[in-house]
């Protein structure tokens, strides 16, 4: 079976800055793939290109057997790409359930159905008790969870998680990890950007390391963390020699 998501020779330039250069990655169905790399490696840019916030300067993106390189974000969502935002973007004046209904409306045109779906997703993500609270009243960890819930309500084939586990307490992070596993078990492919190595590495099936806009290393998490190139990118030359 072909990959669910594939980028081929993707470049993104912002003026003189090259955020992504010749990035070719693929994500298979049912995988959890971690996209990691030091700050400024181009992870978020790549995410935005896949989600359709902007088209790449060069290269192509295929999703589920279709070229989506120039497809707008809303349409990609309809095709099955769901995403969360690194800086949470809740609909602050709306209640939690209403936030999720917006997502659910992609596949449910009847309001009653959308509402039922939204409740289902809140149950799944452990937010059911907060359904009628305004999104602005949620604590940060709950807001992260709402991002995931909203994206799940669109019934994606591929879920893009942008640092959903960053900045959480260890307990919160562990519940987050459990949720990601649950999502995968529900048959959804996950591509996640993450900073906290010790949390991501046990979770993902495969890790892709970006550095300076390029794919540096790709492989099993255990191999990736030992790779001298990765250690060099994160910690600098001296440590790489030691490894």
């Amino acid at each position: 079976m072909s990959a669910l998501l594939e980028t081929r020779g993707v470049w993104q330039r912002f003026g003189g800055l090259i955020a992504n250069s010749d990035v070719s990655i693929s994500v298979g169905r049912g995988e959890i793939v971690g996209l990691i790399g030091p700050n400024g490696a181009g992870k978020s840019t790549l995410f935005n290109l896949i989600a359709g916030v902007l088209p790449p300067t060069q290269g192509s993106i295929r999703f589920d057997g279709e070229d989506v390189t120039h497809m707008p974000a809303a349409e990609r969502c309809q095709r099955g790409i769901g995403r969360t935002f690194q800086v949470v973007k809740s609909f602050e004046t709306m209640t939690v359930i209403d936030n999720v209904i917006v997502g659910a409306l992609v596949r449910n045109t009847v309001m009653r159905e959308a509402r039922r779906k939204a409740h289902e997703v809140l149950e799944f993500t452990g937010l059911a008790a907060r359904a009628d609270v305004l999104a602005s009243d949620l604590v940060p960890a709950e807001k992260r969870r709402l991002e995931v819930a909203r994206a799940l309500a669109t019934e994606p084939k591929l879920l893009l998680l942008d640092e959903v586990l960053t900045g959480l307490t260890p307990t919160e992070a562990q519940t987050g990890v459990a949720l990601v596993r649950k999502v995968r078990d529900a048959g959804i492919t996950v591509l996640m950007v993450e900073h906290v190595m010790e949390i991501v590495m046990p979770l993902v099936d495969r890790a892709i390391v970006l550095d300076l806009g390029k794919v540096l290393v790709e492989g099993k998490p255990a191999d990736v963390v030992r790779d001298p190139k990765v250690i060099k990118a994160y910690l600098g030359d001296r440590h790489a020699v030691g490894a």
Partner: protein
Amino acid sequence: MDKNFAARRRRDLIIAAGLAGLAALAPLFVKDVYVQNILILTLMYAALSQSWNILSGYCGQISLGHALYFGIGAYTTELLFTKFGVLPWFGMLGGGVIAALIAMGLGYPFFRLRGHYFVIATIVIAEIGLLLFQNWEWAGAAMGITIPIRGDSWLKFQFLRTKLPYFYFALALCCLAWFVTWWLEDSKWGFWWRAVKDNPEAAESLGVVVFNSKMGAAAVSAFLVAIGGAFYAQFLAYIDPESVMGFQFSLLMALPAVLGGIGTLWGPVLGAAILIPMTELTRSYIGGSGRGVDLIVYGTLIVLISLALPQGLVSLFSRAKTKGATR
């Protein structure tokens, strides 16, 4: 939870029906023409503000140029009537459709603008519209159009001896605008609009086509406002650019919603019920020579509201409840 939600919506509908019923009985007790006049204007501005609220409150695209659509409704109706003998009822619908098309035509370039830039664009466009009509000879230019009086008739929608038909039409329009809002509130469009207002980028990522949502809101909003303009023209029996397209109309559509609660179902009605009688009264008692006292009153009210109750007066009703729910 779903039951609560359905119950709340049913309750809104029942309250609205009750209020409309009470309002319909008002003429039995109010015989004074001056007071009837105030009631008619209050209902009309409630309807206009409710329509404005669809684009600016729910969808978050603040327009201070809705006077344009109001004027287009008025002019379409009267031009069709005086030049071609088309009945005002058809003119009204025609005006609504033209206003909706113009709103979408303007939305095409302007919905790319955000925040203040969008507001400024709406003001400028409405002023351009006003200038065009002031100089358009065929449409009466600055002299305007006097509607020929051919006696009381529902067919021609003009009445000299009584104001009651205007009252009932204004009430019907107010009910229509309210009901459209109520219905849209629990629809795909309603959710899309609120999502677009709160965060367009997140909305887009959830499959909301932001641009189309704005266009839809603009069309519905402009259509209803133009119907109001057509009504106002018939009610006055005379129109000129300043009296149906002046900037004050844009303000008077926005203010009741802001006062009552922007982006809420009941805000515009509540705001209009307070603001319009107040302006009419200050105008007749303090006004006269001092045109502008009503503006001072608006200004003061808006400042007070935005300081004390930024969510508008309706938040007085809902605040207690949300507190109970969260804690």
